[in-house]
C-alpha cells in the first residue's frame, strides 16, 4: 500500500514545495522571470492533477477488488455455472434472468426486502435523530453514553441475532412473557408474517440506531453556535430552532444516512438467516422473512446455481442504482424548491 500511495503522491510534492513564497527581490531579471514561469506552470499542473492523485488510490484498489468481481459476476450471470465447478461455464444468454423473474419466491423476497427495509430504516433514523439531539445536551458522563450507543454496532450480527431469537421465543421468550403481563396473548414471532418481519427489523434497528445517532451528533456539533444565538434573538423557540437551524444544517448528513441505510436495508442478510437457524436460507417456513440477500444465498450456496445467484446479484445492483437515481432526483427537487 505504501508504495502505491507514494507513486500517487509524488507529483504533489514536486509542485508543492516550489511556488510557496513569492520571490523577495525587487528587480526581476530574465532568469528570475523564467523561474517564475516555471513555477507557475508547476503550480497549474499541481492544481490540475492533484485531485486525481488524491482519488487514485481508491480507484486503483477498487479496480482490482471491486470492479473485477462485479464484471465477472455479470459475465457469470449470462452462463449456466454450478458451485461444484465454478470454472465450467456454459452460455445461457438471459435465461438466468427470465428464470428468476418467473420465480414467485423472487418477488416474495423483493417485497419482504422492501417491507423489512421500511420497518427497520424509518424508526431507526427517527430515533437516531432524537437520540443525537439529547446527546447534544450538556450531559454528565457524555462519553459513557456515546460509547454505549456504539456498543450494538460493535456486536457481531451472529451474537445479536442469537440473543434476539431468545428474546422473541414464542413459549419462553422474554418479550411474550412481558406481553403476557399487559394481557396480550403470545405472539408467534417466528412463523407469523408481520411479527417475524418486525422481529428481524428490530435486530437491525438495535444494531444501527446508536451508530446513526453518533453520525448526526457529530454533524450537530459542527453547526456554528451563532446560528442558534441569532435564531434565539429573533424569538425562535427550541422546536423552531431545531426545525429551521438544526435540520437544514444536517441535510447532507441526513441524505448520507438515508442512502447508506437504504443500501444496507437492501442487503439485509445475516439477521434473517440466523433468526430461524433451522430453516436457514429459506427465511422461515413459508419464506415469510426471506430477503433478496437470503434468496441469492439460497440459490447460489444451497441449490448450487451460481449463474442464477449472479443474476440475482446484478438485479439487486440495478434496483439499487434505480433507487439511487430516484433519491438523487428527489433531493435535487428539494434543494431547488427551498
Amino acid at each position, binding site marked *: 500500500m505504501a508504495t502505491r*500511495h507514494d507513486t500517487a503522491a509524488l507529483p504533489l*510534492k514536486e*509542485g508543492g514545495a516550489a511556488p510557496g513564497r513569492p520571490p523577495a527581490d525587487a528587480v526581476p531579471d530574465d532568469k528570475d522571470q523564467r523561474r517564475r514561469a516555471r513555477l507557475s506552470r508547476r503550480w497549474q499542473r499541481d492544481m490540475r492533477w492533484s*485531485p*486525481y*492523485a*488524491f*482519488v487514485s*488510490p*481508491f*480507484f486503483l*484498489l*477498487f479496480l482490482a*477488488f*471491486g470492479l*473485477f*468481481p*462485479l464484471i*465477472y459476476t455479470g459475465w457469470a450471470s449470462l452462463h449456466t455455472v454450478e458451485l461444484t465447478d465454478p470454472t465450467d461455464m456454459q452460455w445461457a444468454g438471459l435465461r438466468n434472468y427470465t428464470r428468476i423473474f418467473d420465480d414467485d419466491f423472487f418477488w416474495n423476497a423483493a417485497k419482504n426486502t422492501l417491507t423489512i427495509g421500511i420497518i427497520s430504516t424509518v424508526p431507526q433514523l427517527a430515533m437516531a435523530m432524537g437520540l443525537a439531539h*439529547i*446527546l447534544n*445536551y*450538556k*450531559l454528565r458522563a457524555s462519553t459513557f453514553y456515546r460509547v454505549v*450507543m456504539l*456498543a450494538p454496532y460493535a*456486536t457481531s450480527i451472529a*451474537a*445479536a441475532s442469537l440473543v434476539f431469537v*431468545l428474546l422473541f421465543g414464542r*413459549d*419462553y421468550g422474554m418479550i411474550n412473557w412481558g406481553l403476557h403481563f399487559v394481557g396480550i396473548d403470545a405472539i408467534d414471532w417466528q412463523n407469523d408474517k408481520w411479527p417475524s418481519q418486525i422481529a428481524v427489523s428490530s435486530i437491525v434497528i*438495535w444494531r444501527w440506531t*446508536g451508530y446513526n445517532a453518533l453520525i448526526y451528533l457529530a*454533524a*450537530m*456539533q*459542527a453547526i456554528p*453556535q451563532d446560528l*442558534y*444565538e441569532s435564531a*434565539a434573538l429573533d424569538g425562535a423557540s*427550541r422546536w423552531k430552532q431545531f426545525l429551521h*437551524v438544526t435540520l437544514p444544517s444536517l441535510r*447532507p*448528513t441526513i441524505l*448520507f444516512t438515508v*442512502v*447508506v441505510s437504504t443500501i444496507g436495508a437492501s*442487503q439485509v*442478510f445475516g439477521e434473517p438467516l440466523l433468526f430461524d437457524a433451522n430453516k436457514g436460507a429459506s427465511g422461515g417456513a413459508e419464506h415469510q422473512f426471506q430477503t433478496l*440477500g437470503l434468496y441469492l*444465498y439460497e440459490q*447460489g450456496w444451497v441449490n448450487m446455481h*451460481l449463474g442464477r445467484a449472479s443474476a440475482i*446479484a*446484478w438485479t439487486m*445492483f440495478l434496483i*439499487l442504482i434505480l433507487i*439511487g437515481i430516484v433519491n438523487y432526483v428527489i433531493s435535487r427537487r428539494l434543494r431547488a424548491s427551498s
Partner: protein
Amino acid sequence: MTTTLTKPAADADPQPTKRVRRPKSARAGGQMHAGPIAYVILALFTIGSLLPLVWTAIAASRDNQRLAQTPPPFWFGGNLFHNLDIAWNDANLGKAFINTTFVAGVSALTIVFLSTIAGFAFAKLRFKGRGAMMLIVIGTMMVPPQLSVIPLYMMVAKLDWTDQLQAVILPSLVSAFGVFFMRQYLIQALPDEIIEAAGWTVPAAGGWCGTSCSPPPGPRWPSSAC
C-alpha cells in the same frame, strides 16, 4: 427544560452565581443542560443497548444444560473460565487475536488515510469527472457483498494467497463508504476560507490537505475506520 431553569430561581439566594450563568447557557442554543427526561430516555437506551451484550456474557458463564432450561439465566454462573479455557485452546484464539489485530489495524489506518484524501478531493477540489467518479464511489457501495465472494476467491487462488493474510487485507484497504462519509463531512466541516488561505499561498496540494484537513475530520476518523 424549563423545569431545570426555574428550579434554581426558587433557592437562588445561596448560589447567586449559578443563577446568572444558567439562562445564558439556555440562550446559547445547542448546549443546554439535560433535564431528567433526557436522562430517563438515555437510561432506557443504555439498558437496551447493553442487555443483549451482557446476556452473551451470562451465557458464556453457563453450560448448555442450564441455557436450554426455560426461564433463561439472568445472572452469571461459575463456568466462565472453563468455557474460556476451551475456547482459547480449541479455537486457537491467541493466533486469531493477533491476526485480527494486524488485519484490522492495517486496514483501518489505510482506510482512514485514503478516505480522507479522496473525500477531501471530492468535497473541496474541482476537477473534470468529479461527479461521475463520485457516482462510481456510491455505486460500489451498492454491490452486494455476497456477489464478490467467488471471483475474489478465484483471484486469490490464482495469486497463491489462499493461506495468507494479504488475501484478507488487500480487498479491504479502501472503503467506498469511508470516502462518501468523509466527503459529506468535509463539505460542511471544512470552511472554504481555510483551504483558500492554505491553498492559494502554499499551493501544495499535499500541504492543503495536511494542514487544512487534519483538525476537522479528527472526530470522524474512528467511525470511518469501522
